[in-house]
């Protein structure tokens, strides 16, 4: 009879093995990207493949920055992301607070409605949004793009924030009101400080989604005036036969903020993502 502890040890070893495999599987492409970004063009296209750059160079980074007017692209992405996140926070926080703390008729139906709305295909809305934006003169503008982003990111924002608000005891608002606050006073003074971490994590989650987004940006921006970096980068690949080294460098620069932000809030973000799903 295998004793309990030896079986546990076997399972632990297997777990480590699986984890190791997935770390490799998940990270290898990213690591390869970083390595490639430091290789010179000759090295990349040479007949024999090198696993580590023989002469690591930084010119890829310099070139992509200048050549692709990468700064403009990143700035545009940044502006769009900020606007998106701001809109989500202002409108979404209020809504998710209401869904979380108050009971009212139609609440369940509305929640389902928000969920269902996320199911609508982007491609179905693409053309009408394009036409609307063109009509409003918002085409090729960061604001227009941000509005489009908020449309499909806000339900997600509300859903995640609701989870964080749920963790706040409902008696707190009552206690605050007895102490003399108005409802909104209680919300701002008492509840919001408690969900600070959740708000940061959810906002960063939305920011990452907006930063990474490609399809809507492709449709709704036409010139370098408001073009975001994913579109810019992909354009360089398609139209200008971008050398792999520069492409890799561009990729690394662009995903660096994502990785940093993700690492910062991943624990809270994971909690928020899973809280609603497991219960529902």
């Amino acid at each position, binding site marked *: *009879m*295998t*004793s*309990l*502890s030896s079986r546990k040890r076997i399972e632990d070893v297997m777990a480590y093995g699986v984890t190791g495999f997935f770390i490799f599987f998940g990270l290898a492409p990213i690591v390869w990207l970083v390595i490639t970004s430091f290789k010179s063009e000759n090295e990349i296209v040479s007949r024999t493949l090198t696993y580590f750059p023989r002469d690591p160079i930084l010119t890829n980074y310099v070139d992509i920055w200048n050549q692709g007017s990468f700064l403009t692209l990143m700035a545009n992405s940044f502006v769009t992301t900020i606007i998106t996140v701001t809109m989500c926070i202002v409108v979404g926080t209020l809504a998710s607070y209401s869904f979380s703390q108050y009971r009212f008729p139609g609440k369940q139906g509305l929640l389902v409605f928000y969920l269902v709305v996320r199911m609508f295909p982007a491609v179905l809305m693409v053309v009408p949004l394009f036409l609307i934006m063109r009509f409003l003169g918002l085409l090729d503008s960061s604001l227009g793009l941000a509005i489009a982003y908020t449309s499909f990111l806000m339900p997600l924002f509300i859903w995640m924030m609701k989870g964080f608000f749920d963790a706040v005891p409902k008696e707190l608002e009552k206690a605050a009101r007895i102490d003399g606050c108005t409802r909104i006073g209680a919300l701002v003074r008492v509840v919001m400080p408690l969900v600070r971490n959740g708000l940061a994590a959810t906002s960063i989650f939305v920011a990452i989604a907006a930063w990474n987004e490609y399809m809507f940006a492709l449709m709704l921006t036409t010139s370098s005036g408001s073009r975001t970096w994913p579109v810019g980068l992909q354009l360089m690949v398609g139209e200008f036969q971008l050398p792999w080294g520069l492409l890799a460098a561009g990729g690394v620069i662009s995903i660096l903020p994502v990785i940093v932000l993700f690492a910062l809030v991943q624990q809270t973000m994971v909690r928020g993502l899973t809280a609603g799903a497991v219960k529902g």
Partner: protein
Amino acid sequence: MKSLTLQNVRKRFGALEVLKGIDVTLEEGGFLVLLGPSGCGKSTLLSIIAGLEEPSDGKIIIGDQIANDLHPKDRDIAMVFQSYALYPSMTVRKNMAFGLNMRGADQKTQDEAVDQVAQLLDIAHLVARRPAELSGGQRQRVAMGRALVRDPGLFLFDEPLSNLDAMLRVQMRSEIKKLHNRLGTTVVYVTHDQVEAMTLATSIAVMRDGEIQQNGPPDEIYDRPSNMFVAGFVGSPRMNFMGGNLRNTTDGLSIVLDAPEGGDGQVLPLGTPVLAASGDGTPVVLGIRPESFRPAVEGDDLRILARVELVEFTGADTLITYTVAGQPVTARLSADYRPSLGDEVTLTVDARRLHLFARDSEERLN
């Protein structure tokens, strides 16, 4: 039914020693209660008996077999968990038959066993339901049923009644006792509730900080606690403790209670010296259970001066908190006795109901 023997069982978690050498013998059909406060190690000990955890040292002998290397499923045991641990996606019937199912019993055997036990526990009408549809008491019975169906040699209970409300707890307690009387099963039962321990056990092992303080039948635990911890843990309201010194003179043995301001207070003659060997002046603690007091009458030698501080009428008795030698002392007296606050009264106690403990070691002296 199997017997259980534990020899020098120890358990360490890193540097922390949770079980410090446990020795227990439980005969077939006996009902052993592991009683103690949280953190004393009783649940860990139960897990070790079950085989869910390994001891750092020591032997576990179930029946006549050393069980240390045996997987839980090969130890011929069944366990009832505090949270019941019913499989939520299975019906009651499937839950109860699970163990038999795992051992390859055929459907007919499973069904018969389940039906028999369900009848015994009065849950036959629930066998098609899922755990989520049952009340707390019903779930508890299903958990017990799952254990009974296996017909094992040893039953393990881990605080099974803690999640029930007070009335259900009392009811289920009697049912467990009736079942034990009827089936003669060997049981190890963990609880922190001393009433459960007293009513259910054939022997109680009082545990504290990983050690057994005293192991014996309930009346022995109650009437002759071996140290102050056991004395104070079992019995409600709690035993009263008063500090003092022994005086062993030609007049006989007596206790000089500490006076509130220091120095000597009341003197209580103990009559026939019960501990001849103890020296004069030994610091002791006198223990008296609340129900041992009665108002003193003419002819009582042992007289305790007390002052009424609080009177609580429970319906069945009167609980009175007195001040004796500056210390609060609780007595349980007849419901007819209603003193007034501030009364100065005299109480007495039967000398056989006195418990003496050494003040430093807290061990029993008499």
